[in-house]
């Protein structure tokens, strides 16, 4: 079945130094799918995303569009069309907002289209337009989160990894964010892996979902099914009703 999957993860192990965090994760993501990864604090969600894009050493099978990923450095993974909104946002603090966004399109050559895309990001997050010449490090937390998301979109990725993108965003913006992600997903068939604490909203929005606990997948299924099954939702996600 993994033959047609856009992203294949099989028996993935990863960790930091001596400490193992992921103990044999496996799932597939189809092209154009929005795939949610849920789970409690410390379950290894961030670690999974780091493993996917080569930030940490891994063992096991990782294939993107048929190409094996392990042993690739993050820059090569990025050049294969993977964008990552990392935990902690990774802002280039001394650079301006506009420069941060331009860097998102670093691997692209089409300058005119890049300029357009920057405008589009400004349309998504109008406050960034006002702040475009300001050092990104001086922005508010939420504004920096917008920069990180905008920057990831700037590369026109085929796969986008979102690590708690709604962190620090105002409720209204969070809603908008989900709209944006869906729009990008639909318009450009961008595959999305979404790590979120807001399970409610996430399940409403994702196609499939995987629940992680202490480095293992404990539940996989169509997002709608998981959401519908109140018992499951309560057991694994603490969602009431």
């Amino acid at each position, binding site marked *: 079945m993994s033959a047609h999957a856009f992203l294949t993860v099989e028996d993935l192990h990863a960790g930091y130094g001596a400490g193992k965090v992921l103990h044999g994760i496996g799932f597939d993501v189809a092209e154009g799918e929005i795939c949610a990864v849920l789970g409690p*604090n410390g379950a290894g969600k961030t670690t999974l995303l780091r493993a996917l894009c080569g930030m940490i050493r891994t063992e096991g099978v990782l294939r993107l569009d048929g190409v094996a990923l392990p042993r690739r450095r993050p820059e090569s993974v990025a050049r294969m069309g993977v964008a990552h909104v990392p935990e902690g946002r990774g802002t280039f603090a001394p650079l301006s907002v506009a420069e941060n966004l331009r860097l998102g399109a670093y691997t692209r050559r089409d300058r005119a289209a890049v300029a357009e895309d920057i405008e589009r990001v400004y349309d998504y997050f109008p406050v960034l337009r006002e702040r475009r010449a300001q050092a990104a490090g001086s922005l508010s937390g939420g504004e920096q989160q*917008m920069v990180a998301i905008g920057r990831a979109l700037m590369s026109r990725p085929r796969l986008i990894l979102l690590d708690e993108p709604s962190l620090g965003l*105002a409720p209204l913006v969070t809603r908008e964010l989900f709209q944006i992600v869906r729009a990008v997903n639909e318009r450009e068939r961008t595959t999305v892996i979404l790590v979120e*604490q807001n*399970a409610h909203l996430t399940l409403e929005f994702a196609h499939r979902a995987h629940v992680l606990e202490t480095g293992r997948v404990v539940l996989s299924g169509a997002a709608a099914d998981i959401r519908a099954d109140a018992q499951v939702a309560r057991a694994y996600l*603490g969602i009431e009703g």
Partner: protein
Amino acid sequence: MLEVSGLTVRFGGITALDHVGFTVRPGDMVGLIGPNGAGKTTLFNCLTRRYQADEGTVRWDGADLLAVAPHAIVAMGIARTFQNLGLFPELSVRDNVLVGAHRHAKAGFLSAALRLPSVRREEAALRAEADALLDRLDLAAVADHPAAGLPFGTLKRIELARALAARPRLLLLDEPCNGLSHGEVDEFAALLRALREERELTVIVVEHHMGFVMGICDRVVCLEFGSKIADGTPAEVQNDQAVRDAYLGAAA
């Protein structure tokens, strides 16, 4: 009692706070909400003297807070947590918390270097207190772990523990629920309520998690573009049209 009035902060062309005023009574739990960039963190930064206010006054228990040196804020009974974490990554969790208790000890370079008995007694007392706090916040298991490399939610809790170690009367929490799942948010709300009782805290909490804010706060203040646009009970603020337009959106 905290009285903020006419507080204004500008950065170049941006007015991050624009004549903001409100008061917080002892024992209150006040929610501070508002769109991204509204000036919530900036307000905290003024209260803790990270930023210089351009106009306005802040009085705390009758004293002019804006005249206090940054390091002396904590001695006024004010402690805070940071939105993006301000931990000491190479220190163990316990030491992070012990730094929070810095002001409750006296040892100086010389007495510490000589390891005078008074220093040892003081140290033992601090440790006991810190360990109790770690227990209370369920952090005992990671007490000896360096702060770097722990999950985000845990780090937020360590920050809270560190702030509490200062034995504050006014606690400023900047988005404490970040990175917590639904269930964890509820647990945290319960914990915070309990702590407030136990320690007679006055709390101002910035949070975008509306369930949390509306559930726990006695009062909510909403900022937009640096100005206060609403101030009232959670229910009042939640139904305020300006707040809905600017912040909550229709669906909230």
